[in-house]
């Protein structure tokens, strides 16, 4: 029934993935720590002040323009990014192996679920690195991912096993897949919003977060990364919650019953709706919106851990 050999290979690949991510993180950290703060910063400040009460751009101490040759720290950064891609491939392989071993989709318990969420977050970040100048922030994104995967592989590890009857449904595949994609995507704006707050703080008072602040991309870039990712994740999350309702109607006799997991998903959904609102509300853009986004991600993580591990609800068998 369960192919033990494949399951074992899947677990080894998982371990290898974590190791590769740790190295990718170290390399990204080197670029972040030793790389020169880029001239981009001046440009970023200029963008940030368009339309606002403009502080003069000349005040910004211009960093001497770098020649085209790559600095050593930049090379580390590129290696880190390459490692991240390699890690993602290994990561994907480990999930495929687990799926083949058990003959079902590999998201039937917390170990598998968290692994899949992490993979989505990594892939999201790889895509974003191509569009925005954020490569050197990889370590900040990888840190929560490595923590998640470490917990998933140790405390929350589950042996490969078939699903319980209640979990055998096409809606499981769709509903949980949507939840995984949305949660993985939400991780990125969560991190970007924390960095946004740091950068924002530094922009307002150069004495705050001196080392970190000047090495972060402009607040506008971070804000845009957070917003763009959130608006992709939010409809997917909405879709996932609705699929959950359709599945619950078939499995439990009602489409919504305020089960703890449903409740916290609702709370997270409302918080993200508030985030989208805040961006159209005078006086709430920027810092406050970033806080709301962080709160939304906190609710997502809370839902993953607290509800699965502490409360007893219909969703509890997700950890079995």
């Amino acid at each position, binding site marked *: 029934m369960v192919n033990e050999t494949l399951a074992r290979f899947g677990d080894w690949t998982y371990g290898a993935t974590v190791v590769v991510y740790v190295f990718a993180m170290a390399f990204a950290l080197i670029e972040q720590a030793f790389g020169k703060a880029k001239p981009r910063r001046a440009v970023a400040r200029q963008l940030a002040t368009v339309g606002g009460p403009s502080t003069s751009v000349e005040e910004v101490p211009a960093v001497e323009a770098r020649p085209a040759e790559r600095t050593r720290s930049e090379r580390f950064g590129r290696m880190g990014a390459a490692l991240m891609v390699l890690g993602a491939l290994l990561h994907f392989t480990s999930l495929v192996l687990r799926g083949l071993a058990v003959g079902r989709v590999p998201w039937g318990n917390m170990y598998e679920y968290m692994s899949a969420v992490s993979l989505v977050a990594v892939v999201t970040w790889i895509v974003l690195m191509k569009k925005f100048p954020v490569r050197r922030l990889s370590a900040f994104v990888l840190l929560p991912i490595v923590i998640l995967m470490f917990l998933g592989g140790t405390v929350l590890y589950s042996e490969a096993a078939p699903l319980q*009857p209640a979990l055998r449904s096409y809606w499981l595949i769709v509903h949980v897949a949507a939840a995984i994609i949305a949660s993985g995507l939400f991780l990125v704006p969560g991190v970007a919003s924390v960095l946004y707050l740091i950068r924002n703080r530094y922009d307002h008072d150069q004495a705050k977060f001196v080392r970190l602040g000047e090495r972060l991309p402009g607040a506008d870039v971070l804000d845009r990364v957070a917003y763009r990712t959130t608006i992709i994740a939010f409809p997917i999350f909405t879709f996932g919650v609705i699929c959950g*309702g359709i599945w619950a109607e078939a499995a439990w*006799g*009602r489409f919504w019953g*305020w089960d703890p997991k449903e409740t916290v998903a609702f*709370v997270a959904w*409302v918080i993200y709706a508030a985030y989208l609102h805040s961006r159209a509300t*005078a006086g709430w853009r920027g810092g406050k919106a970033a806080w709301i986004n962080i709160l939304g991600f906190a609710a997502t993580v809370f839902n993953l851990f607290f509800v699965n591990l502490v409360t007893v609800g219909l969703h509890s068998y997700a950890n079995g």
Partner: protein
Amino acid sequence: MVPFLRNTWRGLTSMRTALILLFLLALAALPGALLPQRTLNANKVADYIAEHGWWGRLLDRLQFFNVYASVWFSAIYILLMISLVGCLLPRTLEYARALRTKPVLTPRNLSRMPHHSESTVDKTPDEVIAQATRALSGWRKTEREEENGARTISAERGYLRETGNLVFHFAMLGLIIALAVGKLFGYEGQVIVKADGSQEFCNSGVLGYDSFQPGLRVDGTDLTPFCLKVASFDVNFLPTGQPDLFRANLEYQSEKDLDTGTWQTYGLEVNSPLRTDGDRVYLLGHGYAPVFTVTFPNGEKRTMDTQWRPVDQVTFLSEGATKFDPPGITDSEERRTKQIAVTGVFAPTAQLHGSLLNSSFPDLRDPMVAVDVMRGDLGIDNGRGQSIFTIDQSMVDDGRLKRVARENLSVGGEVKLDDGTVVRFDGVKRWVYLQVSHDPAQVWVLVFAIAIILGIGASLIIKRRRLWVRVVPAADGRTVVEVGGLARTDQAGYGEEFERLSGAVTGGKN
């Protein structure tokens, strides 16, 4: 008074209020996940209150154990709904108006726009206008002529964004209303049915159910009739004890079958409810009913198959109380000294530690019961309802119900009491726990939910853009083309798109 009302209305329907109400809604929903809820588990609520003393009682008074029906939760979402209506009405009007008006005049100074390009081309103004019109197909646009002879095109795109946004918010309103209708006219009922075809359940009234939760406008007199029997119950467990399959083989009659007397069959499984005439039947659980036969001293026999309840969901160790009334005794005083209850635990697969019975597997491999036989007054005649799973402990405490035997019995095993009565363990039946649900509005909930997804998708993906073209003839027969662009939502990405568009408008690079 009027200004006060107007200000209140404005305040209530402002974006900031909506935001704060959304926050409050999230905050108010949270206790429902952290505290036990009556609707989900009333026993846990009672335990919680008992454990937490005055704090528990205070929370109870403040409706924290019934969050989603509480006054404060309702107040928040009703305010939010009012705010939503107040916000949607003017926006819909404005939107309808915007659809009928032409794109705005070309600004005098296009170089002030966030995106701008200017070039001189070897074409006539007519050619440029024609080319621009082609490049901007799919945009809403109008052509205007300015006093100095310059010709302009104003173009705008992305109206569907606002459509999506309005659809989303209206669908939200519709969904909430459909939910409310369901709460008014829906019901749920649970019933235990023996899985050997011996018991027929009919949805004819509240009394057929073991428990029933009516909607606010349901009194149980008007249920859609249907009947069902459970012919058999298939289970399969993996060697680890993990369940692999549950299937209740139903025979049922929907409303029209009742007239013709035909029975249909259905394999009821966990993820596939039976749907008939607006009612749905679900398989919620299963369990065992040990069958006991009591042979009274006068030779009369009584057989009962009362269901016992599983106390361990993994091994299905079950407990219960099978109760017997002695036959042929008319004097109620005397009868109440001779009533018999067989209580104790049942193990589908026996595992003995000394004489202590436990279960090692959920399926029927080696069934055994460990019973206490009680004799005396069961307290079933005193009008107080009692659980079918337990005996009335107060009767035991009063000494009116006494234990007269304690024995472990395998199938066929029997125990003889001092007065000659024999209690025999005949075998085991299975029962299933079914739920019947009715919600006339749930299909509307689904429709609105789909509209929500479509609306939000359109609203977040579609971008609103404006573009202006001004064409001025130059002295040497050439033409000056000026293009300006403004992103009305989310700047990101418009830069490249603008370059492409302005390139297409002027007819390639120059």
